[in-house]
C-alpha cells in the first residue's frame, strides 16, 4: 500500500480501516478476559493522522470483543507522558495500559505486571524482539510490557540533499541510495569528521546543521550516538562511573568544533525546535525520525522533497543510532488485566503493525525483526522517492539507548537528568575546560548511581 503518492487523508484512513477490518477477520481467539472496559494512555504521534488510525483499530478490536476501549493520546512534549505515568503510578489509578518510553520501563517496573505469557506468544508467532528493546523491558527476569505498534523510532540523519550537494559536495543519494547497492567506501567516508566539514561549509553558506544541546530528549539521543561512536561513556556496563576517559575528551573536542558551526539557539531548543528549523528551510540537517519530513510534506513541500534520511556518521568506535523502544505496560492496579493482555497480543499482530507503520508514513520502526519484511513503506515513501529508505537500518549501524552502555535503570537516569547535554554545553557554551566539566559530570553521576 503506497500511502505517500497522492493519497489524501480520507483515502488513507479508508485504507487503514480496511487493514483493520482485515485484521479483525483474522483468527484472533477471544478469551474469557476480553470484556469490560479498557483505558489506554498512548503517545500522541508526531505524524499527522496516525492517532486516528490507531484509535480506529483499537476501537474496532473493542467492538469485536465487547470491550469498551477509550484511548487518550498523551504528548511527550514537556515530559507530559512521564508526568502522567508518575501521577498514575503513585495514585494507583488511571489507565489500564500505558505507553512507556525505554527509560520509563525501569522507573515504573514495580507497578507493571509481568507479561511474559504475552511476549512469549508474540515471540513464538513472529520471532524475537530486538535485543536492545529486550534489554529495556525485560527487567528482573520478567517482561514489563509488550511491544508498542507505534512511536518506536530512531534518530537518523535527516539532511537537505540539495544543500549538501551544493555546499559540501556530498551527494547523499549516491552515498546512501534507495537500494541495497551501497558503495562501502562511500559509506565508510560518512564519519563525524566528514559531517563536521560539511557542517562548516553549510554554515559558511548560511544554511547550518543543527542539533539541540539542551535539557531535552533529542539532545540526549543524538549526543548518545556521537559519544558511543567515540567509545565514550558516562557509566560502563558494570555500572561504574567512566566519564573521565580519553574517549570522552575526544568527543568533547569534536563537539567543540561542531558547535561553532551550529546556531547558538541549540542551547535552548526543545524537542520540536529542530523540526521547525528544518521545515522552515533554514537548516540543512538534523538528527531525527521522519516527523520533520512528514510535517514538511504537509506544510512545506518544497523542503520535504529535498529531505534525505540516512545513516548516522561513524566515529572511531563505530556507527550508532539511538533507538527509542516503546512498550505498552499494564498497571498493577488495572481492573481488566486479562483484556489488557489480549490487547497487547492483538497490537503485535502483523496486520496492526503494518497498518501503523504505513499510517505513520514510515516514522515508526517495528521492534520485531520479521515485521520489517511485511511492508515497503520506507522504500515507497516520498517525495523524494527513496527519501526514507535508509531510515530503516540498512548498514553497519548498531542501535543504542541514551545512557549506553550503562545498565538500563542507570541509563534511564543518565538520560533523564540530561547529564550528557549539560556536560557538552558546559564545554561548548560555558567554555569550561574538559577536566572541570568531567568533574562536574562525575559529581552528577554519583547522584544517578545512588540507591
Amino acid at each position: 500500500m503506497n500511502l505517500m503518492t497522492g493519497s489524501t487523508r480520507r483515502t488513507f484512513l479508508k485504507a487503514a480501516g480496511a487493514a483493520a477490518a482485515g485484521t479483525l477477520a483474522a483468527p484472533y481467539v477471544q478469551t474469557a478476559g476480553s470484556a469490560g472496559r479498557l483505558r489506554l494512555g498512548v503517545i500522541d504521534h508526531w505524524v499527522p493522522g496516525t492517532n486516528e488510525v490507531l484509535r480506529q483499530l483499537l476501537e474496532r478490536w473493542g467492538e469485536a470483543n465487547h470491550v469498551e476501549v477509550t484511548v487518550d493520546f498523551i504528548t511527550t512534549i514537556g515530559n507530559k507522558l512521564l508526568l502522567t505515568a508518575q501521577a498514575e503510578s503513585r495514585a494507583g489509578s488511571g489507565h489500564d495500559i500505558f505507553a512507556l518510553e525505554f527509560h520509563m520501563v525501569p522507573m515504573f517496573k514495580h507497578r507493571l505486571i509481568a507479561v511474559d505469557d504475552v511476549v512469549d506468544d508474540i515471540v513464538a508467532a513472529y520471532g524475537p524482539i530486538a535485543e536492545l528493546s529486550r534489554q529495556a523491558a525485560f527487567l528482573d527476569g520478567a517482561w514489563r510490557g509488550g511491544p508498542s505498534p507505534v512511536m518506536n523510532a530512531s534518530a537518523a540523519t535527516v539532511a537537505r540533499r540539495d544543500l549538501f550537494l551544493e555546499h559540501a559536495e556530498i551527494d547523499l543519494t549516491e552515498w546512501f541510495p534507495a537500494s541495497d547497492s551501497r558503495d562501502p567506501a562511500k559509506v565508510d567516508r560518512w564519519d563525524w569528521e566528514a559531517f563536521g566539514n560539511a557542517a562548516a561549509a553549510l554554515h559558511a553558506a548560511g544554511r547550518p546543521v543543527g542539533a539541540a544541546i539542551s535539557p531535552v530528549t533529542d539532545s540526549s539521543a543524538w549526543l548518545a550516538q556521537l559519544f558511543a561512536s567515540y567509545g565514550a561513556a558516562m557509566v560502563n556496563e558494570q555500572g561504574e562511573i567512566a566519564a573521565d576517559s580519553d574517549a570522552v575528551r575526544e568527543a568533547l573536542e569534536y563537539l567543540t568544533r561542531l558547535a561553532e558551526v551550529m546556531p547558538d539557539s541549540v542551547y535552548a531548543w526543545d524537542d520540536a525546535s529542530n523540526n521547525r528549523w528544518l521545515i522552515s528551510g533554514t537548516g540543512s540537517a538534523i538528527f531525527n525520525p521522519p516527523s520533520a519530513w512528514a510535517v514538511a510534506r504537509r506544510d512545506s513541500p518544497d523542503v520535504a522533497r529535498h529531505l534525505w534520511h540516512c545513516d548516522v556518521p561513524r566515529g572511531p568506535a563505530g556507527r550508532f543510532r539511538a533507538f527509542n523502544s516503546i512498550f505498552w505496560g499494564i498497571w498493577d492496579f488495572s481492573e481488566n488485566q486479562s483484556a489488557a493482555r489480549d490487547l497487547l497480543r492483538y497490537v503485535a499482530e502483523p496486520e496492526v503493525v503494518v497498518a501503523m507503520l504505513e499510517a505513520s508514513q514510515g516514522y515508526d520502526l517495528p521492534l520485531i525483526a520479521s515485521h520489517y519484511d511485511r511492508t515497503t513503506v520506507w522504500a515507497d515513501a516520498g517525495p523524494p522517492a527513496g527519501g526514507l529508505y535508509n531510515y530503516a537500518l540498512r548498514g553497519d549501524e548498531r542501535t543504542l539507548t541514551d545512557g549506553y552502555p550503562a545498565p538500563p535503570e542507570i541509563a534511564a537516569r543518565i538520560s533523564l537528568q540530561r547529564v550528557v547535554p549539560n556536560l557538552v554545553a558546559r564545554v561548548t557554551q560555558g567554555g569550561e575546560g574538559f577536566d572541570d566539566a568531567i568533574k562536574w559530570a562525575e559529581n552528577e553521576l554519583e547522584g544517578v548511581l545512588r540507591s
Partner: protein
Amino acid sequence: MLPPLLRRKPAVAVLMCVPLFGLILGLVAYPFFHALFLATLNKAETAFVGLDNFSFLFGRQTFWMVVRQSLLFALVAVVFKALIGLAAAHAINTIPTKGQRKWRGMMLIPWVIPPALSTLGWWWLFEPTYSAINWGLTKLAVPAVPWLSDTFWARFSIILVNVWVGAPFFLIMYLAALKSIPGELYEAAEMDGAGPWQKFFYITLPMIRNIIAITTLFSIIVTLANFDIVRVLTQGGPLNTTHLFATYAFRVGIESGDIPLGAAVSLFMFPMLAILAFIILRNVRRRAASLA
C-alpha cells in the same frame, strides 16, 4: 430548637471552622508531613535513611548552584516588583478617583492571567530561533539577543516575566495602603513646607511599612517557590543555570524518579522561609503594638 451544644457560641464557631481545618489538614499539613516523610526515605522508598538525602544534596555542585540562583532570582525579582508596584501605585493614586478603575483593571491583567499561559506568550516572544522580539530587533538592524540560550539573558528573561506577573500584586497592595493614609497628614506637612520627597519619606513610607513588609514576605515566599515560568521558558537550561528549588526538585524527583531527593530539595527552603517569616512578622507585630 438547637441542641444545647450548638447554642454555645464557641462550639458553633469551632463547628463552622471544621471545613477550613479539613482543607488545611488535607492540602497543607498532610502534604507537608508527607514530604518530610519522603525526604527521610532511600531512593526506592523502602528504608528510612534519616537526613542522608540532605547530606547527599550538600555534596552536589548543581544543588548549590540552584540555591544561589534561587536567592538571586527571588531577591532581584522582589526588589523590582516592589519598586515598580510602588511607582505604579503612586501614579494611579494621583489619578482622579473616577478614572482610576480602568487603570487598576488594566494593570492587574498580568496578575490574573494564569502564569502558564502568559509565560507561553512570552516564550513565543523569546523563542530560541524565531523570537518575535528578535525579528523586530533585526528589522531595526540591532543584533538578535539569545534570550533563552545564554545564561545571563535566560536569567534576565525569567526575572523579567516574574516581575511582569508579580508587580500588579504589589501595586494593588500599595494602592490600598496609600488610600488608607489620612489626607490631613499630607495637608499638615504641606503647611509646614514639606516637599514631595519629604512627604514620601516621612509620611508615606512609615505609614505603609507594615504593608511593605508583609507584601515582601509573601512575595519572597511565592517567588522562591516559582515553578511555571522556568518550566515553560527554559526547563532549567542553559547549563542548569535557571533552575529554582521547585524546578530542580521536579527534575530530580518527578522526572528522574528520585522522589525522596526531590522532596529534600523542595524542603530545603522551608527553614530559611520560616526564619524570614518569623522575623518579618515579629517586626510587624511590634510596630502595630507601638502604634496602638
